[in-house]
């Protein structure tokens, strides 16, 4: 079992031109703990939408690697989206699910993955070819090394410890997050 903060810090190490979308809750705190960045877009709601936001971004910017970092509960709410990702075939999209089998923000209740639902089998069944279960930092390094490989979409089920590290809260003004993300890409407001 991996430490979630170590995992996300490792994924975002030397990130360069990487564009990042995070699902609501703990994955956003993890990305913020690794260092706030103009090219991070943190979702604070719209549960189930992290991978879809990453998909839209990846399709709009095929020249840039896009990484979605979300949790098992968030991804479970958008399982159909994995079928949509598979059909859209964004070569530059990686979806990393931090899977602790828990709903961390609501009291650590067991999620479906704690009861045997295998996200990688869902993703593979949807037709995503590169699916991985990651249980070591070497696996995390391998995932990071492939972010620019252009062989996506990649779906990674990263097994993390079910703990609850201190919250590190990112900005929650959505317009600010949107505008700074776009500005970093040289885009204007509206």
């Amino acid at each position, binding site marked *: 079992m991996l430490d979630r903060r170590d995992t996300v810090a490792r994924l975002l190490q030397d990130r360069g031109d990487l564009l990042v979308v995070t699902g609501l809750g703990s994955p956003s705190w993890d990305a913020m703990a690794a260092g706030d960045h103009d090219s991070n877009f943190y979702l604070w709601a719209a549960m189930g*939408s992290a991978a879809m936001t990453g998909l*839209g971004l990846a*399709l709009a910017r095929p020249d840039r690697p896009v990484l979605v970092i979300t949790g098992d509960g968030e991804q479970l709410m958008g399982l159909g989206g994995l079928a949509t990702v598979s059909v859209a075939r964004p070569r530059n999209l990686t979806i990393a699910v931090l899977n602790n089998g828990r709903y961390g923000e609501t009291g650590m209740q067991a999620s479906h993955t704690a009861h045997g639902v295998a996200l990688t089998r869902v993703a593979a069944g949807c037709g995503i070819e590169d699916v991985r279960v990651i249980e070591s930092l070497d696996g995390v390094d391998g995932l990071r090394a492939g972010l620019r490989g252009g062989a996506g979409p990649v779906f990674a089920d990263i097994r993390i410890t079910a703990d609850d590290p201190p919250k590190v809260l990112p900005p929650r003004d959505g317009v600010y997050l*949107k505008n700074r993300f776009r500005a970093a890409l040289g885009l204007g407001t509206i």
Partner: protein
Amino acid sequence: MTEPGTDWRHDIYGVLKRAGISLIAYVPDAGHAETIQAANDDPDMIAVPCTTEEEGIGITSGAHLGGTRAALLMQSSGVGNCINTLAMVSMCRFPFLTLVTMRGEWAEFNPWQNPMGQATEAALSLMGVQCFRADRPADVVPQTEAAADMVFNGDQACAVILGQRLIGRKSWTK
């Protein structure tokens, strides 16, 4: 080649193209069939079929983050699936243009379409999406153009409501 205004199904795609849209997310509906076909046939359009309508909100929002204009096509039943996800549009003021084909409001055969169909505009309004209705063929182009202007210039989330009377009766006999 049909005259503009005489074939609204044919005209919608041109309006979307002229508005600078280069990504169309959709859940199929008969009323959108021509637009969906045109999007899939156009090498300059990214056509993204969704399994459920709220996926399209993430996709269009993500596209905007990357500098691409996008629209979402759905049936009225799909509006109900979108409610919670529309918080993202509201909070971030993402440009959101959706075209909604109506059921449950005019010459409906399937009563199960009525509850959501009759709540569609109110539900969109509750979530801050302005509705532009088209019930006659001549309304479709100007209403869609007006909605696109409101979205991409006026910074207002908008839905074009393509009325069931416009679309016509669905055949249940074959």
